[in-house]
């Protein structure tokens, strides 16, 4: 099996079958990272370029490690060293990179739609590593893999996503992913951070966090960006933390076997208390481990599996 598509740009485009294929492939790759020699030769001779226009540690490193564990050659380009600061257009950058014959470009950009534009310029595969407030498909896939491991299923679950929904690509990708798999997603946040028409994406919407947490199987806390305070999305970090921050008291609303996810990096004591972040329900580090496996699967299904058909 392989993905019958050139690029992985978002969860919205994927079918349930494709999601299941990526997740089962990722589950089978997890074992590679537990070996003494953490490498398989599957993508030997393939070249992956990580083109990051936004700062990222976790995601970029995860893509790089995933490529290397598959024996692909990985090259990192970050904005501070790229030609973008010299005024080169995305199109010119894309065509120059393509002239070096990569097999895949992994791109992150602060503008929504950049990977889609890039995919139209180049013949190689393009993987979206986060575009503006649009999508972050590999994050949603690693979240789904983490939930599936613990819950054994992705259908019939109650998922609460709490925080700044308006600016979150993680929220959008997860709404698409979990609803496609048959779970019920509720998003919660201050009304200033709930984007217009979000319920039309197939989720419940509330500004009452207790309501969102009641009976939840999974709680996903989103990172709050401190600079939103000066834009009046919320008055103070203190108030945000009191109303929306996840602590032991609020956690009691959820199911006893609730699990907690966070895409990181976390603001301790703001959207999540330290006790909760470090507590038994927290799977934040499992998410990071699964991120590598999911990205190995993405590379494999886009670049490697074709020849085996």
């Amino acid at each position, binding site marked *: 099996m392989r993905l019958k598509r050139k690029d992985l740009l978002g969860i*919205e485009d994927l079918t349930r079958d494709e999601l299941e294929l990526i997740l089962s492939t990722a589950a089978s790759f997890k074992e590679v990272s537990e070996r003494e020699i953490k490498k398989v030769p599957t993508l030997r001779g393939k070249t992956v370029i990580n083109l990051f226009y936004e700062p990222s540690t976790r995601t970029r490193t995860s893509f790089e490690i995933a490529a290397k564990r598959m024996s692909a050659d990985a090259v990192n380009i970050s904005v501070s060293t790229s030609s973008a600061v010299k005024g080169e257009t995305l199109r010119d950058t894309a065509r120059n990179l393509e002239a070096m014959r990569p097999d895949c470009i992994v791109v992150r950009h602060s503008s*929504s*739609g950049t990977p889609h534009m890039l995919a139209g310029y180049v013949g190689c595969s393009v993987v979206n590593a986060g*575009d*503006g*407030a*649009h*999508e972050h498909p590999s994050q949603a896939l690693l979240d789904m893999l983490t939930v599936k491991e613990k819950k054994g299923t992705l259908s019939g679950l109650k998922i609460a996503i709490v925080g700044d929904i308006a600016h979150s*690509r993680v929220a*959008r990708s997860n709404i698409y992913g979990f609803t496609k798999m048959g779970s019920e997603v509720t998003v919660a946040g201050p009304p200033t951070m709930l*984007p*217009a*028409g*979000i319920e*039309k*994406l197939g989720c419940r919407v509330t500004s009452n966090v207790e309501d969102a947490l009641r009976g939840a199987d999974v709680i996903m806390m989103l990172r709050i960006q401190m600079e939103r305070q000066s834009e009046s999305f919320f008055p103070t970090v203190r108030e945000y933390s009191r109303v929306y921050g996840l602590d032991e008291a609020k956690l009691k609303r959820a199911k006893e076997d609730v699990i907690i996810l966070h895409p990181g990096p976390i603001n301790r004591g703001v959207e999540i208390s330290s006790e909760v972040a470090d507590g038994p329900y927290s799977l934040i580090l499992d998410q990071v481990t699964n991120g590598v496996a999911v990205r190995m699967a993405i590379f494999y299904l886009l670049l490697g599996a074709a020849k085996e058909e």
Partner: protein
Amino acid sequence: MNRLVIKGGRVVDPAQNLDGFYNIYVMGGRVASIKKVEADTSEVGTDVDVVDATGLVVVPGLIDPHVHLREPGYEYKEDIATGSKAAAAGGFTAVMCMANTKPVNDNESVTRYILKKAEGQPVRVFPVGAVTQGQKGERLTEMGELKSSGCVAVSDDGVPISDPGLMRRALEYSSQFQMPVITHAEDSSLVGHGSMNEGVVATRLGLKGIPNAAEDVIVARDIALAELTGGRLHVAHVSTRGSVELIRRAK
């Protein structure tokens, strides 16, 4: 005297309440008569040029009261020659060009430069002067001079006039020169960094939305100020239901 007949087109002219198939007879550059196609039994002499307009729409020269010819300053986007030719190709015979050039058309020398460049172009060019110096939204332009040098209206188009007090003065002051104030009706803080209409499509695409209220609040404000001052207000590129309703009620 040169003669011309435009035959068989669908002639549309709201000013004469015309919409039908007519032959148009032109003498010496002026329309001499219009005859219904089916009732027209005129013989056309060999000295007459005939334009077969079958399947075409024939209209009086159109006027576009809102164009950007970009010259001076932004010739890499457009210039007076290319914009004029494009207008003519689209059936326009006159255009009003906005003031957001570089330098801004906020004084006689820029207006005269535009008019000089417009000489010999296939359409007539009527410059619009700026409302405020440099379109900075601080001080009014010398509208009397703009008028006498050839401007037909004033506008800071591209930039909303945020200060209500200044907008009041602009409507008052321009009225003595019979120049309407053409507004770019948007509240900048409601627009923010938005790039499309606010709603589920923007949310799905991960783009920042602009609510309709960003336009509606300024249209409502400017209508109140026009009423207060008796000035002439022209709201450019109306794009919301709310604005349409406000303008209809105000009229």
